Every structure is written in structure tokens, then in C-alpha cells.
């Protein structure tokens, strides 16, 4: 490599958004959580809201660790309970811009009831779900988002339970902004987070993310790069999609877009 095409930077471009004293982080190579955090950091960088007023609340799990790495008022709560904690924060001080960033198991299994009720109440918070279809931190168990037939450590013969279709669940529960992108769609994901920031009401963004260490390994899907290629080749952008029809089947088409914006 010649010197001219080497990109050098003294500091990480997102340094001011990160707790650099906590790096290295715990996430695996190829994981999409870092990409989602990067999209989040880009989104808040481009908005006019002072960083002092932005809070991040996480539950438990790999994505639950996001709160520990962002240089904001950040709260790492209990499993499934990020949304009610965020509800308390937001209602007690409506000037705060409150984000919940957590995983699919945390938000939709143990925390599922809180999600639908926060959407029903139209609490003015933003929920970003990193959906990797599996419980990563505990070693690859079945999630409420695991596609039919996918293998996990607790569905070794293939999952036989219907997964949640998260955008449909969010829309039908009352969310005023609903989007789904994959971590291949970094720019669209960032723009969706900006839209959520500017939306007064309950906003939900699903970030479909590779989990090379457990989901991909158990289902022989290759490394993180192979999954990104899959997202590129199998994603269909359709902002007007009926959320009822965009459930995710194992290794089939993923419909992405900003589906609800009211």
C-alpha cells in the first residue's frame, strides 16, 4: 500500500460520541451492533439537539451494552426493562431526547409487553432494535425473531415457532414512525434515525444485523461479509410496503424501508 491511499486520522471520527476509555468493546468481528451505533452517532451528529439532552437506555444482551459505550447520559438497565425506564426519564423531563437501543430478545421477548404499551401510549421516545435473530450474549438461543427452520442452541432441529414481524407489531401497536433497514443500508439507517429524532411520537427502527459468531455459525451462513452480501442481494426497498406482509423467512427476501411516517 502506498502512502497516498492510506487514510490516517489522529482520532476516531466519532470520538466525541464514544466513551473511548471503555474501548475495546465486547462485540465480535462482523457484528452489526457497531454499525448501528455508528449510524446512531452520525444521526445525532447531524441534528441540532445538544448532546447533553440525549439519553440512551439499554436492556441486557449484546446490544444492551450500547449504553456503556456512548458518551451521553446512558443507562444500562435490567433485561427487558429499557422501555419503562426510558418512559420514566422522558415523562419526568420532556426536554430529554430519549433513545432505547437494545436487542430483539430484550425488547420483544422479556420486554414485549412494554414495547406494545409504549407504542400504544405514543410515548415520545425512539426505539432502535438491533435484530440479529438470536440471543448472542448467552450463546445462541432461540429468539422471538428467529425465522422458521433456523437453528439455534435451543432449536437444534430448526425453529418451529412463528417469529414476530417487528414493523407490523410496531405499526399495529400505534407507532408513528416505523422503519427497517439492514446494517448494509448504513445511510438509509442513519436517515431513518434522523427522521425518528424529528418525529414527535413513538418511533421504531429495526436494524437487521449479522451475528457471525452464533447465528451465522449455527446456520452455516459464512462470515460477517457473506451476510452483508446476502443483505445487499436479497433486500428490497419498498417504503410503501404493507407491514403485515413483510415477515422474514429464513434466508429469503428482506423488505426494507421507512414504512410508517405519520
Amino acid at each position, binding site marked *: 500500500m502506498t502512502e497516498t491511499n492510506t487514510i490516517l486520522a489522529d482520532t476516531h471520527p466519532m470520538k466525541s460520541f464514544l*466513551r473511548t*476509555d*471503555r474501548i475495546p468493546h465486547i462485540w465480535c468481528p462482523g457484528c452489526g451492533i457497531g454499525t448501528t451505533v455508528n449510524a446512531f452517532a452520525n444521526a445525532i451528529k447531524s441534528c441540532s439537539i445538544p*448532546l*447533553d*439532552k440525549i*439519553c440512551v*437506555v439499554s436492556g441486557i444482551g449484546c446490544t444492551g451494552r450500547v*449504553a*456503556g459505550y456512548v*458518551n*451521553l*447520559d*446512558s*443507562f*444500562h*438497565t*435490567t433485561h427487558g*426493562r429499557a*422501555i*419503562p*425506564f*426510558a*418512559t*420514566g*426519564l*422522558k*415523562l*419526568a*423531563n420532556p*426536554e*430529554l431526547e430519549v433513545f432505547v437501543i437494545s436487542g430483539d430478545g430484550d425488547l420483544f421477548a422479556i420486554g414485549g*409487553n*412494554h414495547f406494545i*404499551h409504549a407504542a400504544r401510549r405514543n410515548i415520545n421516545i425512539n426505539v432502535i432494535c438491533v435484530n440479529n435473530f438470536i440471543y448472542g450474549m448467552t450463546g445462541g438461543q432461540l429468539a422471538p425473531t428467529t425465522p422458521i427452520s433456523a437453528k439455534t442452541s435451543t432449536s437444534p432441529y430448526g425453529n418451529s415457532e412463528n417469529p414476530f414481524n417487528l414493523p407490523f407489531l410496531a405499526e399495529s401497536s400505534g407507532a408513528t414512525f416505523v422503519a427497517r433497514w439492514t446494517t448494509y443500508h448504513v445511510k438509509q439507517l442513519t436517515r431513518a434515525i434522523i427522521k425518528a429524532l424529528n418525529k414527535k411520537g413513538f418511533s421504531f427502527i429495526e436494524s437487521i444485523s449479522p451475528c457471525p459468531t452464533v447465528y451465522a455459525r449455527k446456520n452455516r451462513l459464512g462470515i460477517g461479509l457473506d451476510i452483508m452480501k446476502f443483505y445487499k442481494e436479497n433486500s428490497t426497498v419498498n417504503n410503501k410496503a404493507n407491514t403485515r406482509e413483510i415477515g422474514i423467512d429464513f434466508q429469503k427476501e428482506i423488505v426494507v424501508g421507512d414504512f410508517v411516517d405519520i
Partner: protein
Amino acid sequence: MEKAKRVLSGDHFIQGDIACSEGAIAAGCNFFAGYPITPASEIAERMALRQPGLGGVFIQMEDEIASITAILGAAWAGAKSMTATSGPGISLMLENIGLGMITETPCVIVNVQRGSPSTGLPTLWGQSDMMQARWGSHGDYSVIALCPNSPQEMFNLTIEAFNLSEKYRMPVFILTDAIVGHMTEKVTIPKEEDIRVYPRRYTKLPPAEYLPYKPEADLVPQMIKAGDGYHIHTTGLTHDERGYPVMTADCHHDLIWRLINKVKNNQDDIIRLEERYMDDPEIVVVSYGISSRVVIPAVMRAREEGINVGSMRLITAWPFPEERIAELSERVKGFVVPEINCGQMVREVQRSCKCIKPVTLLSHPGGDIHSPDDVYQAIAAIAKS
């Protein structure tokens, strides 16, 4: 909505649950999250009626887990927050009570106890959650729990609970029961200027110098609120003074002992007892909450008959006054402990007196209460022994 009067100074004839809400409001409570449950619903209903007019927040959450978690979030946004429930609700809240303890979040949790376990006796009273309050969430920590025995004390002690929660930066329990909660009696609400309110211990340090879990001399760290520019991190994981997770036995040792010792080292400031007829007593009746109200007639009758018996009422069940019991056990013949459970606080009395003196348990599992005669007979039996 028209601005309502915050402190309703004057004499009232109101229910214990209502008095609890008014005490909270007088203490500055401006955030209540709860879920309906007998016999605590009236606390939520009063808050739903009162908070909007005061510029505060009332929210009925989807369950008790959400209620406790919402009041923790609200506290970190600067609110003085409370939730109220009964035994089944506390069972659901326990994990996040632990989160409140380890993140040192000031708030008040009211348990209007009913006959338990499980659904038990929804409309009838009990005192069987005393040990649950002490040990319910997993792990080691210390608790503060206050036990009102009248609607007036529901008012007074709810203010005390808020003050203790701010002073020691932790969730504080009100442990009452369905009788006190639903009893209607005279409650005198003082003038606003006569109510002592302990302010939150906000730091004066700039963000660059502030460490969210660095304790003061009394082992309590100073607090901030979200949005003030401190960019703090707080977690239920074992953490260092920065609030950052540290997965080592040493860090865990320092944190857990500090959580325990911040109550233990300050117990003289926290423990509240009401001692009556305690002039060198031969026998002591140890009671709390509603069952303390049947003790005094029994003690007076025994004293009229020449038995030197005194009454110790635990206003704070936790921390337990073990040193005072130990000191008394050197001099007395025995203790009588009436409680509406199968023997919970009696274990503390036995432990504190190191079993050197007889301790008589008077037990009702719930839905019933001792008569003064029951207590008198137990006193007389020790006196004769």
C-alpha cells in the same frame, strides 16, 4: 389545568392510603407510576387526581415491573418518584428494586400488605412481606423500611421515607397493611413551612471532576440528573466509582460492602423506635404496624396487675434495632412478638438477643389480628415463668 394547592394543611378525616399520597406530595413527589392492586389502588387513584394539578406526572403502567422501572428512570431525570402496590406487585418488582439499590436511585416503594402468598387475601391484611422487603431481590444489600400504624403516620412516614431515600440515595420502603391503608382517621397536615424536606444530594463539581459513584464520608455518593451535561453511565453491573462495569471480586467487594455499610454505619440516624413504659421493664413487647395498636391495652392491663412490661414499637423494621434488643436482653425476662405472619421479625428478636431469653411469637398468618387479651396472656405467661 388550574394550579392546585400542594400541601393541604389542616385537619382531615381520610384513609391511610390517601394520607400516604398526600405525604408523598408534601415531600415533593412529582412522579408516580403504578398498577392497580387491592389494597393499594387508592394511593394511585389519589395521585391520578392530584398530580396533574401540581404539574407532576401520574402514569398507570402495564404492570408492576414497568412501574418500578419507570420511577427509577424518572428519578434519574430529577423527579422525586414513588410507586405503591401490595405483595404480588412487590414480587414482580423485586429484580428492579435490586437495580434501584445498585444504581443508588432515590425513590419510595409502598407495600400495603395483604394476606399472602400468591393472590392470598386481596381484601384482608397481613404482615408477611417483612422478610421479602429485606431480602427479596437477589444479592446482598441493605434496606430501609418504615412501618406506619395509622393514617397520620402514613402521612408523616411517607415524608420520612422520601427524606431517607434522598439522604442515603436508595429506594426506601413503606411497609404497611390493608387495615392501615383502608382505615379512616383524623390526619393533621402541617403548614408547608413546617415540613422538613431533605433535598437531593446534587454534586457541585464540574463534569470533568465528578465521579457518579465516589462516596462522601457517609458512604453516599452525590448525584446528578440526566440532561445536565455530565454524560454519566449507570449500570446494574458491578461498577467502579466512574459507574463503569468492572467484573472483579475486588470491585464487587468494595461496592457491595459500601451499599451495606451506608445503612449500617448510619443506623443511629435511621432507626426510629417508639418505646413506652420502658422504665427498666421485666418483659418487652416488640411490635410494628397495625399489630402495635393492640399491644398498648394489653401492656396497660398487665401493668395494672403489677407486671413491669414495656412496649417497643418498630417504626423502622429495617434496619432492625439489634443493639437495643441485645442490650435489653441482658436485663429482661423475655420478649413477646405479635405479628400477622408465621414468624418473621421474631427471628430478628431471637437473633439479636442471642436466644438467651425466651421470645414468644403470637402469630396470625393473615386476615386476623390479635386481641389485647392474646397479648396480655403471653405477657402473663412469661411473668409467671
